[in-house]
Structures are given as structure tokens and as C-alpha cells.
């Protein structure tokens, strides 16, 4: 058990390409951290630097107060689960699990006990004598997990471990990983490009873009108060609507539509406005509303996504399924559900919804 400190870590490849730019993250003991971002954002590179599979160009990584920059992967007391599982194809499941322990000179009885325990936890007991090729994708995934947990390492590193599984299995394995991590209380870093996976697994999310941290926070903090337009469009499904608007006094103008902010305007002049699809609703009589022209409807069962225009800007709203939808609707949004970003840098202006009600957000995240 140990925390992990990543301090000003950069990765510079020969030729001067900076894949990771001075990233710092403090990870508490037992915390589940998810690095999320689009492909090429440096999340895997960062994880591999923690694992010792890539050299650290700048900065320092410590695991449990030991600086590990110059240590071999084996000395860092970590275990890693790879995207393609990386099971040793010529060894049985038992041998796969025992390999790391054997290399460390663990007594045979101890190896047997630990493998048996891991096999019981992951329900792979019946397959111990099989070779990996005789297992299904989900079973291989479990073996890969088993190989990590038998070692009882200070930290688990996951490199997109679920992306080779089909959608249904991915959801159930996601739950299992979360449960297992809670039960073992092992510090974990998990890399994924899937924002849903990130939201459901993380104690804290680290959103990366172009080798830099865009935001660190609990899933709900990130969801309710995205620090930039990048985070806003990356986290949450459907993506947050981003439209350009203009603040005049306490009024927000989006094209022809005017929204009254009741004195809550955080700035003035042109801004990028973020509206979550689920925060938009059909205007009640007497409510300040704006006109919305319908393009098409996506029926998702539990909700329906309505795509259309406000003025000449695209907008998606999530509306209840029971009512009829006309070609032209009047939509409304609570003023405190609006997000504002500077047009130039895309950085957030003002606090978000969650930040204003921190108590509520925290309670939900621990439920």
C-alpha cells in the first residue's frame, strides 16, 4: 500500500516531440485515479513512465515515498494489466499467475495459496490448467487481473484493459474491477479513452489533452464544472453543447435568443456558452425561453436526444420521451446550469454547479 506522487513529469522523445508536458498528480493511498483523454494525449506514456517501461525525461515519480525514476519495473512494486492482456501463451493459467512470484523467490506453498486465493476471487479456478488460447476474452481479462493481484503490489496500473472486450462484457468487467479495487484497497492508475469508463471507475479523474492536464477532480466535479471547453466536450454523453454567445449586463444572447441571468453574469462580452443536453427542458408557460428548430430525433429508450438549431448554432437537448415534439420548440434552461468559457482560450469563467453546492456533489460521489 502506498501513494504515488508524479511531480513535473515530462516525456521528450528524440527529435524534441513532447508527449507529456510537466504533469503533476498526487495520488493518495488506495485511491482509484483514471487518466482519460483522446488517443495521443500522453495518458499511456504517463502510465508507462510510472511502470518503468518508458524512461522519464524530466520530473520525478515516487511510489510510497521512494523515488523510482531509476528503478527497474520489477523493483517498483507495481503490477500492470495490459490492453491485450499480455498473457504468456506457452504457460498455463496457473503458471501465468505464479510466474511473477516464482521470479521473486516466493516459497512454493505461498505461491499455491496466493494463486488459489486469486483464482477464487476471480472465479477462474476451473481454468488453472488451461492455456490462455483456450480461454474467452473475459476469462483472459480475469487471468490478467489475477496476475496483478497475486503479487500484492503497492499499485495497480491498468492500460485500457477493457477495450478488447465487447460492450456488454465491458460493463460487467468494469464493475468487477471497481469492486476488486475497493476490496483490496490498492492504489490504482487506470488509463482509458472511454469517458463513461472513466466516470464510473474513478475516485478522481485526470483529463489529459496534448500531454497536459486539463482538469483533475471527482467525476461529478469534472462533469458539473468542466475546467475548459475541451473537458466539457469530452466528458459526458451526449457532449456538452458549446455555442457562442454574448453577455450584456445580466442578459445572455445566443444568436437571436436572450436568456435572463438574474444578475449572475460572471463576465461581459463574447463568451463560449456550455449547455448540457439534460439541463435543457421545454419552456413552462411564462418562463424565459428561446426558439429551437428541430433537425432530427435520436430515440434512446429512456431518453430522446433532440438535435436542432438555435439561430444558426447546433444544439442537442435531452427531452422526456412521452410528449410529442413539434418542428419548432421553445426551450429553457436554469441560469445556474449555464457554463461560461472564454472564447480565446476555452478556459472556464466562474464556478460550476457542483462547486457552488460542494456538499451535494461529494455525497453523491461516495454513494
Amino acid at each position, binding site marked *: 500500500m502506498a501513494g504515488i506522487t508524479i511531480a513535473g513529469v515530462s516525456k521528450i522523445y528524440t527529435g524534441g516531440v513532447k508527449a507529456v508536458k510537466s504533469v503533476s498528480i498526487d495520488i493518495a493511498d488506495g485511491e482509484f485515479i483514471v487518466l482519460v483523454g483522446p488517443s495521443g494525449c500522453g495518458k499511456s506514456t504517463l502510465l508507462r513512465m510510472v*511502470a518503468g517501461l518508458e524512461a522519464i525525461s524530466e520530473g520525478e515519480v515516487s511510489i510510497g515515498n521512494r523515488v523510482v525514476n531509476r528503478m*527497474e519495473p*520489477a523493483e517498483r512494486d507495481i503490477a500492470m494489466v*495490459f490492453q*491485450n492482456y*499480455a498473457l504468456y501463451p506457452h504457460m498455463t493459467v496457473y503458471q501465468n499467475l505464479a510466474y511473477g512470484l516464482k*521470479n521473486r523467490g516466493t516459497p512454493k506453498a505461498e505461491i499455491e495459496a496466493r494463486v488459489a486465493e486469486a483464482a477464487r476471487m476471480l472465479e477462474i479456478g476451473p481454468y488453472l490448467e488451461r492455456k490462455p488460447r483456450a480461454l474467452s476474452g473475459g476469462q483472459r481479462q480475469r487471468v490478467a487481473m489475477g496476475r496483478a493481484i497475486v*503479487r500484492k503490489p503497492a499499485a495497480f496500473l491498468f492500460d485500457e484493459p477493457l477495450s478488447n472486450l465487447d460492450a456488454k462484457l465491458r460493463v460487467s468487467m468494469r464493475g468487477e474491477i471497481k469492486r476488486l479495487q475497493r476490496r483490496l484497497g490498492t492504489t490504482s492508475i487506470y488509463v482509458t479513452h472511454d469517458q463513461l469508463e472513466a466516470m464510473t471507475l474513478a475516485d478522481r479523474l485526470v483529463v489529459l489533452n496534448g500531454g497536459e492536464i486539463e482538469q483533475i477532480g471527482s467525476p461529478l466535479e469534472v462533469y458539473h464544472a468542466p475546467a475548459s471547453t475541451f473537458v466539457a466536450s469530452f466528458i459526458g454523453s451526449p457532449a456538452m453543447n458549446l455555442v457562442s454567445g454574448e453577455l450584456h449586463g445580466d442578459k445572455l444572447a445566443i444568436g437571436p435568443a436572450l436568456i435572463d441571468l438574474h444578475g449572475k453574469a460572471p463576465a461581459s462580452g463574447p463568451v463560449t456558452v456550455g449547455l448540457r443536453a439534460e439541463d435543457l427542458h421545454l419552456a413552462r408557460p411564462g418562463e424565459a425561453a428561446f426558439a429551437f428548430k428541430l433537425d432530427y430525433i435520436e430515440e434512446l429508450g429512456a431518453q430522446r436526444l433532440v438535435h436542432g438549431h438555435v439561430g444558426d448554432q447546433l444544439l442537442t437537448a435531452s427531452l422526456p420521451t412521452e410528449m410529442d415534439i413539434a418542428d419548432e420548440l421553445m426551450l429553457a434552461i436554469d441560469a445556474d446550469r449555464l457554463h461560461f468559457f472564454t472564447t480565446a482560450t476555452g478556459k472556464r469563467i466562474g464556478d460550476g454547479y457542483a462547486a457552488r453546492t460542494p456538499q451535494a456533489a461529494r455525497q453523491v460521489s461516495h454513494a
Partner: protein
Amino acid sequence: METKKTTFNNRLLPYLLLAPQLFITLVFFIWPAGQAVKSSFEREDPFGLSTSFVGLLHYQRLLVDPNYLDALIRTGVFAVAVTALSMLLGLAFAAAVDRLTRTGRIYTTLLVWPYAVAPVVAGVLWWFLFNSTTGLMPFVLERFGIDWDHDLNGTQAMILIIIAAAWKQISYNFLFFLAGLQSVPQSLMEAAAIDGSGPVKRFFTIALPLLSPTTFFLFIINVNYTMFDTFPIVDATTVGGPAQATTTLVYKVYQDGYLGLNIGSSSAQSVLLMLIVMVLTFVQFRYVERRVQY
């Protein structure tokens, strides 16, 4: 795995496409082999005017002929030594080049060159190097108190042809081993590194077992090579001598048939040689089905 198949309606076409290869196989391989089998049961008079059927006489004589049995053992020693030497060195070079990132291509290119050298030239090359009067190696070896003369010393002659034959084959083994090593997934090596396995241990516990199909394939190829394809090397260096110390089975076939003009016995020998290789290959393939897969 699904593969795309194009269907041709013309039923003659496949046979037509196969015809050139079949023709070559029949004329240059099956027919001569058949001739060899036929003449191994016959005896020809010195002038080639008459042949008579003698049954298994040639085979019976061969199997009690000490010269033949010696050649058999010698070939065994030669095959094992060449295969082991060329495969071990090929593997060592491949493992070394596999660890290089930038200069790997240059080494690969250089290491493949010996394979392009004709066997006779390879033989002559080593014959020059080891020539007891003008060669470089005997001069060096003399410093270590070794008196090298493969024209007189049978063991040294055998060592010479082993070196020459193995040298030529290293390139081939190297290429296959390198391709094999490079197809071992990087993540397996990384997983093993995290599992506390150092570079040497990783090589022996992960890479080498995964190379077993390659190793097996090369083993068969190398044994066949030493049995059949080493004739030019022997002929260009030791000519089977001294005192038959380097007369391998394939060289004896040539000596008895072409030089001694004992076509019947020579044919019987080549049939036996063929059988040995067939049995070896068969046994190896049977064995591999159970052991080499993973």
C-alpha cells in the same frame, strides 16, 4: 480465419497453373529418385551393356560394410555439430540484433551475406583460411601450440568442414530467429519485466519457448542441409579425406557412384539417405504436434 476466395469456373485452370511445377517435380525429382530406387536393385556390368536384377544385395552388403557404417556415424556427428553450431550462433546473433534499435538493419544486412555465397566458394574460402602452409588460422593457432594440418589430421578436417558448413547456414538461421524474436509481442516482454524477470531470464523463459516452432523448423531444415547440401563444401575442401575422415553419406554416394562407377551400391546408398531424412522428418513432425504448440 476467413479468407477471401475467388472461384474460377474453369476446371482445367488449376491443373494448368500447377503444370509447370508438377512437370519440374516429376522430371527432376520423382523420375531420378525412381531411377535410383530401380538401379539400387540392379547390377550393371563394367561397360554398361547389361543389367541384372539382384534384389536387396546392395542393401545387405552396405549394412555390414564398415566403411558405410563409419560414414553413417560420421554424418551423424557432422549433422549434429553443424546444426547445433549454426543454430546457436544464429540465435545468439538474432538476440543481439533484436536488442539494437538503430543499427539493427545494417547488422542484419551484413549477417545475411554469407548465405549468398555459393557453397563451393564458402568451402574454398575456409580452405584458404585454414591452409596449413599459407592460411591465416594455422599461423594463429600455432601460437597456441596447435599444429593445424587438415590434410593429415582427420579430426581437424572434420572441424574444418563443420565450420565451413555452419558458417554458411548461420545467416539463414539468424534471419528466421530474428523474425521470430521480433514477432514476440513487446507487451509480453514488458509484462515479464514487471513480473521481475531480467533480460536473460526473459529470453529463456518467454522468448525462447515462443520461438519453439521456428527452432523446430530450422532444426529440420538444418539437418536436411547437412545431409544433402554440404557436398560442395566437402568436395572443395577435404575431398572426403584424409583417410575418409570427412566422407559423409552424400559424399560417399558420389565417390562410389561417380568415381567408383558402382551405380547399384551408390543408388542403394542414396535411397537409404533419402529414407533416413524421411524418417527423421516424420518423427520430428509427429513429436512437434504434441510438444511445440502453445
